[in-house]
């Protein structure tokens, strides 16, 4: 009988593609770019598939790959933005901080790892430990990147650090 690696790869892809797409979409906010990230991730995964063990263990591995694909892309874009704008610290926006595009634009101005940390923790609801595993860094680094990222994001959105971020809800 043949090695079943291709079949197992296809089974794995079918099983995980929706979740990968969703994570990619939350990371970048653009459905087309999200599909590109997933496409690249699945390509890398297939390139390494013969050397990867059981499917169950691949989950964290493939999400790490996806985050890296995102970071690689953002690092290139990030430098471009900085060189072109010349100002890494734009003034606080006076637009509505509850508006998706406004928040996304502000998030995109953060360093890529801080973007990834905030999205994984607060949109993908992943615990600090898991984010640390995905980014291959310590939990302490995740926490400090979270703190820096949030401070920066609030500044960009003009949200006071001590007031509730979105004040519409009542406690």
């Amino acid at each position, binding site marked *: *009988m*043949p*090695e*079943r690696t*291709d*079949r197992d*790869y296809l*089974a*794995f*892809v*079918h*099983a*995980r*593609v*929706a979740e990968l*797409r*969703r994570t990619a*979409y*939350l990371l970048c906010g653009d*459905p*087309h770019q*999200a*599909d*590109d*990230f997933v*496409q*690249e991730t*699945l*390509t*890398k*995964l*297939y*390139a390494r*598939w*013969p*050397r*990867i*063990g*059981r*499917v*169950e263990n691949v989950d964290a591995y493939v999400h790490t790959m996806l985050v890296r694909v995102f970071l*690689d*892309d953002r690092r290139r874009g990030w430098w471009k933005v900085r060189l072109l704008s010349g100002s890494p610290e734009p003034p606080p926006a006076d637009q509505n901080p*509850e*508006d998706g595009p406004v*928040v*996304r634009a502000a*998030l995109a101005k953060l360093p890529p790892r801080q973007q990834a940390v*905030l999205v994984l923790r*607060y*949109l993908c609801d992943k615990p600090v430990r898991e984010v640390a595993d995905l980014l291959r860094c310590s939990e302490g680094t995740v926490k400090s990147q*979270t*703190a820096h990222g*949030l401070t920066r*994001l*609030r500044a960009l959105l003009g*949200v006071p650090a001590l007031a*509730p*971020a*979105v004040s519409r809800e009542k406690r």
Partner: protein
Amino acid sequence: MRGEDEMTDERAVRLLTPLRGEPEGPARIDVGRAMAEGRRRRVLRRWSGGLALVAVTSVTAAGGTLAATALREGTPVPSPTPVATASAAVSAVPAGPAGPKDCRVDRLPTGRVTKALVTAGDPSGRYLTGRLYNNPSANTIIWRDARILARPTVPGDDGRWSDINRSGVAVGSGFVTDDREQAYVYRDGKVTALNGRATAAYAINDAGVVVGSIGEVLNEAPVRWNSVDAKVTRLPLPDGVTLGRAEGISEDGTVVGSVEPPGKRESTGYLWLPDGTARMMPLPSVGRKKADLFWPESIIDGWVAGRAVFDEKDVRTFASFRYRIADGTYELLAQNVIPALISENGWLAGDLGGPVVLAGNETVKLPRHPTGGDYQISSISVDGRVIGGSSSFSLPGDKVGNDPLIWTCR
């Protein structure tokens, strides 16, 4: 009173909430392209030792677009009660009251090569085939009695042997281009191409009959060679079906494989019998749930073993079965071993979070190798006492190591 961290988290979630959402529209992900490109990069990596970033382009491919359904492996199928149990009167598989005993594991020799896999074994357990990595002089290996017999080179990329018979004749394939394989045979120390362009060979029995596929990768049709010198011949397919593969052959000439029924993008089990007839394998049930597909993973005279696939809205589950060819009934196995490799006494070797042999309801854990990690089981001898497989383990720098292993039992 709530902790500061909790307050921070709550406020952060609310800050980012406007970004919540799901990607709209159909996925534009082309898995066929990912596989073709991934295969090309395997070659690149082999030659360059590193990997250049390749620009990501988006492609909308009608044929290769995936439905974005979430499916999960490893979720237990509820109510694991067999609906089709072999009656004692017809059963040809002995209960196998005692499983294999006193099993030991040894790493197979590979000369100076440190990374290697076992890919197949013969019915006697004397011969095993494997792949060698990072070795310019040969990409495969054949062991006899756990000693190196030969280190042949299979032309093309990802060359490997898929099966070997009691005479030490091995069949396999290599990728000669990104989407085209060529079938090869190893016999008397020589590697030669089997007849037919764009073929892959998956199995050989002791009579020397070979089965496999013809056509580009993911567009294959099932074939047979009546001997390693014979012309390739296509196996019949049911009306409306064009895709399939012949994946295993028993000593009595029964061929098992899989075909893609019209409208499905995945294959399910199919049998070509020695009398010239052929039929779809029925789909087994667990409780009231009927499987959506059945994937054969091994064949021995009278029996096929494999995995049933159950798809629900957003979950995919598996259950391992053995199928009695004579009366078309399934028996649910006590555990979902992957793959389910069957021996003549009805034992099944596979992975269950570690290497195991199932003997009836008994699960015999095979010893782990000191290098540890995960295991891929590739062969079991007809007497169930010699098992071939490989371990995978992490190495520094994101690399994966593999050891070729043989388990021998009493």
